[in-house]
């Protein structure tokens, strides 16, 4: 992902290789021998910007311990578990080879679950980003009460997803939900809709809530991106007599590209891994008909009669591969590397 971020620096083809987080002076910071001031270099005889591995380990050690201990280790444990069989209480029984993967691929639910996942991720990510582009543009205008609007937009972000999901579960309830009541009152619908119980409506409903909770972060990322565009570019466009739409197409969108790339990649990861929303809103439906890969994986391991840790682990590995491929395809498709060189 560092490449994605680095692509935000116009005219820095090196970007990808050395910067996780961009910031303008870093180019100089990392290259002490840029030769401008030999006298200064002499003064720093024991070069402050080069460090031995030992010193590096001292500064980075805690991060490495956490990452290896709590991210890499579980990833390996997941891989190992995916090749094993387990008792219902979770004790390792024996090596199972590819049995878990075979079982997963042969599972009659997999097709539906994968399709659900695709629809869920594609719809939420695309619609969220489109709406967020407009919302961010709006939030960066100056107007009376803007501060309150920004605060309001923060709320779904700050509230725990579990709590928001429970709230929408009640609001969309067939009998007790305020949404049916409101739509009936406005004569938009003639009889109540079973939003969460019917296979036609549950996915669009969950997608709508998914967009609602993903919008704040995305919109804020775009507001930050808009802030980073220097105002003199707009000034120049205005003097040249560009229409607002031309300005948007020719200036805002291209300069917002890095922010859009980051937003889409992060959203793909977040939305794919979104658990509480689907787990709770789909909670009262039996089977796997409305599940995504993530809730499916969880239910296989921790719910129902099977408690099949091995197959769930295989699903987990499958998920990691799917999301890596999806992000890879997206980055390929958007040609970020080329975009970097062009700019």
């Amino acid at each position, binding site marked *: 992902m560092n490449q994605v971020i680095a692509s935000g620096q116009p005219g820095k083809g090196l970007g990808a290789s050395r910067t996780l987080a961009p910031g303008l002076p870093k180019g100089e910071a990392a290259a002490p021998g840029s030769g401008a001031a030999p006298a200064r270099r002499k003064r720093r005889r024991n070069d402050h910007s080069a460090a031995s591995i030992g010193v590096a380990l001292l500064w980075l050690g805690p991060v*490495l311990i956490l990452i290896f201990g709590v991210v890499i280790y*579980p990833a390996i444990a997941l891989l190992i578990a995916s090749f094993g069989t387990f008792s219902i209480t979770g004790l390792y029984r024996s090596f199972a080879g590819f049995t878990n993967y075979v079982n997963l691929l042969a599972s009659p639910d997999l097709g539906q679950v994968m399709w659900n996942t695709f629809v869920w991720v594609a719809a939420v990510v695309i619609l969220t980003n489109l709406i967020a582009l407009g919302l961010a543009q709006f939030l960066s205008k100056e107007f009376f009460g803007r501060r309150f609007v920004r605060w309001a937009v923060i709320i779904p972000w700050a509230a725990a997803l579990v709590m928001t999901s429970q709230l929408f579960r009640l609001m969309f309830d067939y009998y007790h939900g305020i949404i049916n009541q409101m739509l009936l009152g406005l004569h938009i619908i003639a009889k109540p809709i079973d939003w969460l119980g019917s296979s036609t409506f549950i996915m669009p409903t969950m997608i709508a809530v998914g967009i609602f909770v993903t919008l704040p972060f995305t919109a804020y990322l775009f507001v930050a991106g808009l802030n980073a565009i220097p105002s003199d570019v707009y000034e120049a466009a205005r003097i040249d007599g560009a229409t607002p739409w031309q300005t948007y197409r020719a200036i805002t969108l291209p300069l917002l590209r890095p922010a859009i790339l980051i937003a889409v990649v992060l959203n793909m990861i977040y939305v794919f891994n979104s658990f509480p929303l689907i787990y709770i809103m789909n909670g009262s439906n039996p089977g796997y008909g409305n599940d995504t890969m993530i809730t499916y994986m969880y239910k296989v*391991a921790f719910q129902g009669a099977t408690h099949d840790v091995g197959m769930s682990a295989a699903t987990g590995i499958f998920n990691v591969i799917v999301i890596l491929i999806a992000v890879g395809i997206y980055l390929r498709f958007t040609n970020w590397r080329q975009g970097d060189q062009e700019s």
Partner: protein
Amino acid sequence: MTSSTLTRVSPPRTVPLQRKVRGWKAARRWVLPLAGLAVIIIFVIPYIVMLLDAFRPSSEVLATPPTFFPKTWSLQAFSQVIADPSFHNWLASSLIVAVSSTIIVILVAIPAAYFTARFKFKGRMAFLGLVVVTQMFAPTSLVVGIYREFYDLGLINTYTSLILTDAAFNLAFALWILQGFFSAIPKEIEEAAWIDGASHLGTMMRIMLPLTLPGIVTAVTFTFIAAWNEYVVALTLIQSDNLKPLTVGINSYVTQYQQNWSQMFAASLIAIVPVVILFALIEKHLIGGMTAGAVK
């Protein structure tokens, strides 16, 4: 629409354009705040529903047909939740886990971000690559592996397992934001300190930290909120009721056997409101932090 006709008739185009702009200038004083009000309503209304449901007896929440405003207003749900010892435990768990993991992230991420922003060393690329990879992994997708690990370590059903997981998975984002800030500080400032005889650590503490405060605030907020709202790992690793964080605990107000929606919403609001206030307070830093750290 209008713009295309305007471009075609090129010579006199500035005149209608200016008139249009002036008309818009007058209108936007009203249009923008009204549109803002619409946005506020969309984002706030669901939580108003939550608030109004918390202010009525649980039996009324499940009335058919439902009403927007409570028929009987009642503070019962709030007083029950506040008196509920389970709620105290969940609140304490959430606080302990969120505060501890935030402290760990900051203590661990600041030196690493400073170091990678300032120094060249062998393996720097590998390190940055590793951080990016952790950003790609969500605890959700690894939850079975996390369960296996803490099961083997005998740490299932402990705060430690939650704190470590929350810290590890939020590290990447904090590092990323902080490094953006550290790189943006001109090196000359540090060099001046070194010439005056300050150590690397001293430079970082006394010179760099104050300058990167907005970044630290952003990183702290992100980590705290992510840990405060974490659900799936806690759901998986914590079995005793008294160790559950709020996100997991509140769900026991609404089960197959009891439907105390108003209590669940009262508890939710007690958890949500302080975080929203915290978030609103740092809102300006937030955009600055994201600009410097992520999108620039």
